[in-house]
């Protein structure tokens, strides 16, 4: 199926209609250094509509961060990028540095896992937000201060007037992440990418930050890409879910469809391996042997084949195409699961 057809179908599913905000097509990223080639992203396509939350999930090294950093022009020089990524119709890949800087923050902003490392430890919170505000607009000091306070209130930082004058280490992990979100929102982005933004937080704090993201999404009409290794997080908060394996999308559907009827053996393996509250203590977990493939030497066939309980001979010859098999439900597998909830 072509990307156009895909768009039509997804548009129906997405229920947003109209032009997609972001349109990624056959995105590939390869790192080359000292004769070594790492195929980090190997043909990723998706569409994201305004106001939607898309979760990208997968194990460590599956290409979640690299594929998003490519959209922001944040990859090192050793990265070879191909494919297409259009934001409101405008091609992002290959943008000159200056234009990329303008697009970054104003169109798409990113929040990372470790707010302690993303914030400057020697600068007061207020100064860092004001700086972000002034970087995106020609505003005077007074207006920048007001906007900064408004942002801190928007992310519901407790006692913002006091926190404004404090340093990052004086804030809890949850509060630092709120500040990072405030900085990301400084230029009113239309898309926020949250890369493992709640991974380092406690469950209770994670719930608060996710609640904040949902609220911001409703109030500002922002789209969100939620990058995570946590299927539970995706199921609970996202509209749509992409499961990545070895740099490819292997399953893609609205969250409710996906979790009601998993098709991809890899997704099923992930779901089965998660300790769940409803399992009694000491119950053995189903085991998937092996490890993800070496990205410097990907197999010709299905990359999950060596670990897959459903594998057959045909899985080894050619990688299964990523196709929409049911309305809105895409997967890349020759012998999919029956589709009952696991």
């Amino acid at each position, binding site marked *: 199926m072509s990307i156009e057809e895909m768009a039509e179908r997804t548009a129906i599913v997405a229920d947003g209609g109209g032009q997609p905000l972001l349109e990624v097509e056959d995105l590939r990223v390869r790192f080359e250094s000292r004769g070594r080639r790492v195929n980090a992203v190997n043909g990723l396509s998706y569409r994201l509509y305004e106001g939607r939350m898309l979760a990208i999930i997968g*194990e460590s090294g599956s290409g979640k961060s690299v594929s998003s950093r490519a959209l922001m022009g944040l990859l090192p020089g050793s990265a070879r990028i191909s494919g297409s990524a259009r934001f409101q119709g405008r091609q992002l890949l290959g943008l000159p540095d200056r234009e990329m800087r303008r697009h970054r923050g104003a169109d798409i902003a990113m929040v990372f896992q470790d707010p302690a490392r993303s914030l400057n430890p020697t600068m007061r919170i207020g100064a860092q937000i004001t700086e972000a505000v002034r970087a995106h607009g020609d505003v005077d000091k007074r207006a920048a201060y007001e906007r900064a306070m408004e942002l801190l209130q928007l992310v519901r930082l407790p006692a913002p007037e006091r926190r404004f004058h404090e340093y990052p*280490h004086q804030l809890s992990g949850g509060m630092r992440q709120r500040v990072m979100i405030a900085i990301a929102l400084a230029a009113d982005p239309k898309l926020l990418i949250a890369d493992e933004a709640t991974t380092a937080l*406690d469950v*209770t704090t994670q719930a608060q930050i*996710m609640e904040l993201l949902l609220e911001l999404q409703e109030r500002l009409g922002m789209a969100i890409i939620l990058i995570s290794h946590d299927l539970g997080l995706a*199921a609970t908060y996202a509209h749509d879910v992409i499961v990545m394996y070895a740099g490819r999308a292997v399953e893609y559907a609205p969250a*409710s469809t996906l979790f009601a009827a998993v098709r991809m053996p890899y997704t099923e393996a992930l779901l089965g391996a998660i300790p*769940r509250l409803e399992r009694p203590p000491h119950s053995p977990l189903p085991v998937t*042997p092996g490890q993800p493939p070496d990205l410097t030497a990907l197999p010709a066939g299905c990359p999950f084949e060596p670990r897959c309980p459903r594998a057959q001979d045909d899985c080894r010859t050619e990688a299964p195409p990523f196709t929409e098999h049911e309305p809105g439900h895409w997967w890349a597998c020759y012998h999919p699961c029956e589709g009952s909830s696991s």
Partner: protein
Amino acid sequence: MTTVEERPTVLSARNLVQEFTVRGRGGIKGGVVHAVSDVSFDIAEGETLGVVGETGSGKSTLARSVMQAPRPKSGEVVLRGVNLTTCKRAQLTEARRHVQMVFQDPFGSLNPRWRVSDIVAEPLVGYGVGSGAERERRVRELLDLVGLNPDTFGRRRPHELSGGQCQRVAIARAIALDPALIVCDEAVSSLDVLIQAQVLNLFEQLRTELGLSYLFISHDLALVKQVSDRVAVMHLGQLCEVGPAEALYRAPLHPYTVALLASIPEPDPESARRRRPLAIRGEPPSPISPPSGCRFRTRCPRAETRCAEEVPVLRELAPGHSVACHFPEHDGTP
């Protein structure tokens, strides 16, 4: 089936206290961090006690106090009849054989220059166990036990292993001296779920085959339930609830446990985009100046005036199921 209570106690911790004096910087007040405040528990042979709690609640400090590294400020730890908190250094060294620790970072805990077989042999060499040939045999046996082929993996170095393989090596090293108890501090938290499942199953296999006991620490409640017979919930240096895993998860007594359980995002179709009422609002209090009375009261939906005035003590409401709360969720008879 023998219940856990009938088995002999391996480790007994009584009234453990650990505090850190911190100096102020950048405007923050200095003071004493009450990292572990009067914590007691027992672990029976072949039993796993899980410890859950949010970041900074004192889980790692508790683990280190058990290991006597450093020794707790007060309280005692008795391991198979030996009081580790008062015994002489030589006796402590001997006793330490029986308690081993597995940490979160699988790479950081292994010497990067050593081969896997040397890493696993190290405790055997350190305690002068067996001859060279016997040690070699034991290392092969251990690697087999943790599911690593000794011929393939024995000669590798840590950077040639995956995270899960590194953690298996760390486990092989930890069980080399036949310990009675393994303390796992976030031992699988950095692993991907598929590898995590392999390592969790390995822990279970070793428990049933070797009769090992575990003190299993994690911030992940579902993970802890998976492996634990009993679970202790830690909050700001104190145990607020302890009970049999099944009962504690099915019918939690402490409002904090309820909040933790309600915050877990579960991958089921019904949960999709479900707006859930937030279980806890507000920020965790400072461990330097914890709230008076109940340390959870600033975030507790059930708090009343008594909670600010009187420290709730741990009391048993159902067999083996205790709670430190003036107004628990139910009376212990669910």
